[in-house]
């Protein structure tokens, strides 16, 4: 029951940064959460060694993103660009951290992006990343790094799209699992006074639905929070997503471990949502 469950404990937040707009939104969200949880924030910029190795091949040319001019990439040139990027990001990071009074550190590390993040995320409770990295293709909305990390599924992850902001309304996808209750508790902790929490519940089977609804209602009553329910069927889940698709402010919380049905739904629709998405994983 709910009494057994606690919200996720966030003491250390890791935010992975690059020069993309998604990444900047992720940084803003991470700073807000660090402020909320009074957590330490670590900003991370990774100098991709894979890219540097590529530069050693004779085949490696880049096309300027704005100028569309083709030019040869050299190891030196690439290194200097990366250093410049890291400095730029560090300045933004430092400014935001200073403004909010959050305790933060910024690190520049070399290595493969996925590996470094995986390694670094072990030392944190929550990982914040841009939904799409610097990939020129704006879609699909889930970049390779994000996808890889989700698959790893070791930590709670906050995915933030460009221009999206943490805020209200907060939605929680609920199935009767322990992680769903953790998600609910986490949502409760993030709610502002007077705000309403929307719980997404599958309608069928109807007994189970009524039962769950009752349990959540009792929980809400006990915790003295406003809630509303949004019921859906597997085939109508897409319709609900369509409704909130363009919203840029709010939070969509869902548990990491989902039953196969939900997994299919989430994988199908996750990329459609613009809201920040918090994938809740049990703290280690």
């Amino acid at each position: 029951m709910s009494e057994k469950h606690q919200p996720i404990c966030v003491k250390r937040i890791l935010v992975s940064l690059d020069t993309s707009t998604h990444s900047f939104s992720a940084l803003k969200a991470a700073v807000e959460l660090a402020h909320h949880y009074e957590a330490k924030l670590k900003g991370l910029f990774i100098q991709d060694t894979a890219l540097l190795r590529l530069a050693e091949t004779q085949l490696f040319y880049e096309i300027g993103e704005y100028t569309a001019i083709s030019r040869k990439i050299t190891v030196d040139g690439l290194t200097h660009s990366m250093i410049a990027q890291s400095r730029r990001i560090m300045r933004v990071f430092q400014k935001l951290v200073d403004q909010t009074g959050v305790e933060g550190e910024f690190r520049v590390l070399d290595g493969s992006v996925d590996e470094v993040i995986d390694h670094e995320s072990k030392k944190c409770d929550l990982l914040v990343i841009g939904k799409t990295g610097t990939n020129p293709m704006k879609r699909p909305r889930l970049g390779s790094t994000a996808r890889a990390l989700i698959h790893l599924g070791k930590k709670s992850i906050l995915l933030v799209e460009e221009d999206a902001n943490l805020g209200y309304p907060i939605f929680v996808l609920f199935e009767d699992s322990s992680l769903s209750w953790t998600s609910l508790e986490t949502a409760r902790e993030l709610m502002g006074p007077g705000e309403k929490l929307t719980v997404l519940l599958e309608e069928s089977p109807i007994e189970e639905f009524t039962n769950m609804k009752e349990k959540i209602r009792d929980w809400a009553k006990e915790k003295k929070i406003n809630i509303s329910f949004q019921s859906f069927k597997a085939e109508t889940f897409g319709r609900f997503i369509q409704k909130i698709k363009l919203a840029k402010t709010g939070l969509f919380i869902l548990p990491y471990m989902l039953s196969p049905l939900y997994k299919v739904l989430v994988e199908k629709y996750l990329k459609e949502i613009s809201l920040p998405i918090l994938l809740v994983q049990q703290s280690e």
Partner: protein
Amino acid sequence: MVENFELSPDKLYRKCDPDQLGFRDTSEIKETVNIVGQDRASKAIDLGMNISYSGYNIFVLGPTGMGKRKIVEDFFKEKAKSDPTPSDWIYVNDFDNPDKPDAIELPPGIGTQYQKDIEELIEEMQTAMSAAFESEEYQNRRQAVFESFKENQSQLFNELQEKANKQNLAMIKTPSGIAFAPKDEEGVMDAEEVNKLTEEDREEIKENIEDLQGQLQNILQQVPTWQREAQEEIKKLNKEMANFAIGGLINELIEKYEDYEEIVSHTKQIQDQVIENADAFLPNNGGEPTSFLEAISQRGDAQTSLMERFKVNVIVDNSDSEGAPVIFENNPTYANLIGKVEHFAQMGTLRTDFRMIKPGAMHRANGGYLILDARKVLTQPYSWEGLKRALQSKELEIESLGQALSLISTVSLRPEAIPLDLKIALVGDRMLYYLLLQYDPEFSDLFKVEADFETEIEWNESNQQLYAKLIASIINEEKTNIFDSSAVARLIEQNARIANDTERLNTRMQDLRELIVESDYWAKQNNRDTVTKSDVQKAIDAKIKRADRLREKIQESILRDINLISTKGEEVGQINGLSVYALGNFMFGKPTRITAQISLGKGQVVDIEREVEMGGPIHSKGVLILGGFLKGRYAQDVPLSLSASLVFEQSYGGVDGDSASSTELYALLSRIAEVPLKQNLAVTGSVNQLGQIQPIGGVNEKIEGFYDICKMRGLTGDQGVLIPKANVKHLMLRQDVIDSVKAGKFHVYPVEHIDEGIRILTGTEAGELQEDGTYPEGTINALVKETLEKMANRLTEFGKGKGNQSE
């Protein structure tokens, strides 16, 4: 003493009888009189004020203190009541030429009303625009445009990605671009792995990469076009939203002001501007400025700066006016007169716009009347030129001095000129008027009416009554205590004294006003509710006392015999002349010793003052007349063989005027005839070649000047002054002088001819010319003639002697 000639005390002063005034005190006078005896000036002002042709502006001339400004202001105010209230004028931004703001004329009161309406419109527009741009409809449509743009882009990238995948190539983001790299099942291949490939494989990969790069370039080249298209679409959407949001507000305003074409046009321009610049109303992210430059640009925030341009600058507001304005500008600087464009400092630079246009006195008086002090206008740099330019062009063009003189070349405002229709009254002294008339050719075209103020009026019964009313009006105006009839009578007498005439009254309002206020002060000092004659006298005495430091010093030096003046005894060739000193408004008389010396000569009378350039031309003329008199009377048979010199003893300043010419003649005759002159008498009066005595100025002060010295030394009973008979009507002597005359201790002798004077001064008859061409023996004329003949003979003898010697 020569009783036959002496003036009786009643001739020394003209009294104003309080009983004749017809009231006990001024509270009984209800009629207000502001102007007395200025018929000529009144008619001129009336003409100038009512004539509607151009150039009929008025120059009000007369000495200072006449109350000219007040009088002309009263005239204008009376006329202005029945004149129509002039229009309001506003300046609005010209959106096509912001440096040339538009002037709009509106009925009185509409200017401020429109200004208020625009302020409200701005506020409402901001709310309406924010609501429109925050609406779900707008947000969704905007998002849809961006989505469609992104969709296009990502579709092409997806296709490219797929192609790359098929060719085992990965699309990678580099720090400043996009690159393709070969990959295998394990991911992107590094240099080592690529090197392991065969030459052919590498060549194929290279070709594929080049092909994909070409396609990528094509896509990227299209991005800016799509972005532009998306921006255009957003802009169109913004305009649509803006138009909808403010359309109602604008139409409401247009309907309200449909009768005013220019306002409707301005309102429509505002609408166009808002729609055109709708982007400025988009909610901004509200971020803090990160740099100095950003701070500056945020300061001039686009929305605020746009809204500021819609505002209305009311330059002339006649909403509370009834009738035409009457303005007096006390500080007629160029800017205060013509208006100015002010600037505000922003980050070290000076900026301005149409809101900084400030009106001048001519704007405020437009459609009415403007009164200016001529001297101030002329002494303020370029005010006179600016005033004339505006009157000539009949429009008001605000131009800073810097611009007008081409001293500043930076861009500034050039507001649209406003048509000018007003009457100007320049108030100044006569000298200024005649100088302008003489030296400024444009002056007579622009100021065709001269309103010349009289400095005095005739003292007759009706004017005396009018004068009393004028006094009562000033008393009311100054809110002083009431004056009883004796005080009013004394005021009238004093104004005759200021006019130096028993038949004239001074019309210089300032003197009268000061005397009234000061008399009131003394009455209050004595705890009296009503001002009496003694208070007026106290005020007169106090005023003299305040000013007479120099007179005291001079008198002191005479009494201490530093300045040698005899008031008793007899002397040959020495006489007491009388001169007048003027210190501002204060005048006083002083006796001066004049002496004469003679020698053989060629008939010349030498003016020592002139020789040392201390004598003015009028004085020299007077002395030359003496020569004419001597030649005419005594040198018909023998040549005038003397050389005479005349001097004002102990005179260390300049001397001018001919009022001492008779005095000099007496000294000269005394010296020639060797007959002593009485030193207990003093003389004033000019003389002509026929020996007639002519009037002089300052007669009262001169008499009093000699009287004071005599009195201080102790009146002997035979002391007195000889004055021209023509000056008798000017006598308004001090009461103590009159009292002494009454007591027979001092005497005033009116003299018509030099013969009368010499008789009084010597006690010897002048002697009339007899048929045989001689004068009766023992008379002055006989003695003079005899001496002159002797001198002629001596000169002849001297000439002969010299001739023999030379032989």
